[in-house]
């Protein structure tokens, strides 16, 4: 365990050092990320104002809070993608990683955890500007704040598992882009990334509850900006843990069979 802690801390440090090298690129990337929720925010705020000040239980200030917190959750949700798996297999990097006495997923989780440290620092000024412009309404309790900080890391791990499962399919197909795009489309609708889940039809919300996607976006955002009960907060954390464990099981299972088929192409 001590060895893994040492590895995670060192790998995070390396990620921070690398990202500092590319501060300008990271800032432009972050500005690009802010554009997406800003569009959603403007659209839904307009609709809310036209419908007498609120839509789906969200006031204009509530929507502003939702999408500003969204920008932080989005950063936390940046993980090693199936494209990354495709690339590492096609270009032979997986071969070098397989020579290490630990699963490559540790490298991914630790590296992107370190990457987030840099992005969160960059995020603060942008969040401040968005706050000044859109004037969010945000009154969380201490419990909500604590659960939010746990939930954003839970969301990170759930999304890591989803994408690792998809990425590992590359061990059979060498290309996984099409499957990734399908998953991405589902995520847009069923995660709360596009709109808060409460604005979705009831049947969509029902389906989403039993899928992993909403626990990566909607749950952590709503934990801070909504009015969830303590029971809902703890259930949400439980659902995240459930999907992390399911993901771990699937990753191990697919890895076990997939690695036997690995043909170490491209090198």
């Amino acid at each position, binding site marked *: 365990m001590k*060895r893994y802690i*040492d*590895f995670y*801390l*060192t*790998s995070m440090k*390396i990620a921070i*050092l*690398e990202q500092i*090298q*590319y501060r300008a690129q990271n800032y432009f990337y972050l500005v690009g990320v802010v554009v997406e929720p800003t569009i959603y925010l403007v659209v839904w705020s307009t609709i809310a104002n036209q419908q007498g000040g609120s839509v789906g239980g969200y006031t204009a200030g509530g929507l502003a809070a939702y999408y500003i917190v969204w920008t932080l959750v989005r950063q936390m949700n940046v993980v090693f993608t199936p494209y990354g798996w495709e690339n590492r297999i096609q270009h*032979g*990097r997986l*071969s*070098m990683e*397989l*020579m*290490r*006495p*630990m699963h490559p997923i540790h490298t991914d989780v630790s590296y992107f955890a370190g990457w987030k440290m840099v992005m969160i620092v960059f995020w603060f000024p942008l969040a401040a500007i968005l706050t000044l412009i859109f004037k969010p309404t945000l009154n969380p309790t201490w419990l909500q704040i604590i659960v939010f900080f746990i939930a954003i890391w839970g969301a990170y791990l759930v999304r890591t598992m989803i994408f690792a499962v998809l990425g590992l399919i590359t061990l059979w197909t060498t290309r996984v882009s099409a499957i990734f795009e399908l998953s991405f489309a589902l995520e847009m609708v069923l995660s709360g990334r596009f709109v808060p889940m409460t604005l979705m039809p009831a049947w969509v919300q029902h389906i989403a509850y039993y899928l992993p996607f909403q626990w990566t976006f909607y749950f952590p955002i709503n934990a801070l900006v909504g009015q969830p009960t303590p029971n809902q907060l703890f259930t949400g954390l439980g659902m995240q843990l459930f999907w992390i464990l399911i993901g771990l099981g699937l990753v191990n299972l697919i890895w076990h069979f997939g*690695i*036997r088929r*690995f*043909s*170490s192409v491209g*090198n």
Partner: protein
Amino acid sequence: MPNPAITVNLLSKHYKVPVREAGLKAATKSLFRRKYNSVKAVDNISFTIQPGEVVGFLGPNGAGKTTTLKMLSGLLFPTSGIPDVLGFQPSRRQADFLRQITLVMGNRSQMSWDLPALDSFELQRAIYGVPSPDFLRTRDEFIELLDVKELVKKPVRNLSLGERMKMEIIVALLHRPKVLFLDEPTIGLDVTMQRRIRQFVEEYNRRYGATVLLTSHYMADVEALCKRVIVIHNGKLLFDGDLSTLVDRFSAFKTIGVTLANGFGSFSQYGEVLNQEAGHVTLRIPREKTPEVTARILAEQQVDDLTVEDPPIEDVIEKVFAQKSAEV
């Protein structure tokens, strides 16, 4: 006698490769009915390597060298045969096994491109769980051996190919592996850099008694490091033994170089004249006739100097492949 470091018994790796003719018609047809060829990349090879041995693994491109190294390092599952490396079954990829081996591929990098090599060394320490005092001692020892004290502080992207290769070697050996699989470690490097890397591998083997299995197209690497060579071609093992035995067996000729005291003379009666210029003659003589011809030249000519040499190892290896291909 200690247990062998590496035991390979009837090891094979066969690939199923989809094939089709060129063109749209063939592509459409392949959607419904795919044809496959079975490629025997490695075909029932067997050998053992003792701890501390440095063995050259030779063969032309596509011979099966890298596939064998990948099976021995646990990257590929064999189709048949279970190799044994340090008492482990490589394909199980146990952490204890991976901590004791390394695979260096001349065209693959383990370094972070944007950071100084020192940072990548530190990450490697954490990956292998090397205690800090051991890590620092080994790191500094390797830095000194390869004379890269200043280079390790530069971002890797700013290093030349040869300088990067030195870093790759250091990072791959920081955990002091007992078995080194070196796949073309000097590929693309100039002769000075090749020599440096060779000396380092030699020194590592001497200091730590590591077992080394080396593939290289540069025969200078093999001659400098390997007493024993294994030759593989089309997945089959052609030769396993001392480099000198290989030369004896596959080289029917020796080269005699004669420097003449008076600057000229006739030599065609001794053998094939390969070159004659400025008082120096090079002859190719059948191996068994070398002592007799040498004695005759010394008796009949005014000789300043005379050398008898085996042909270049490249020529011998080429001959092995040509002869064995003809047999197959």
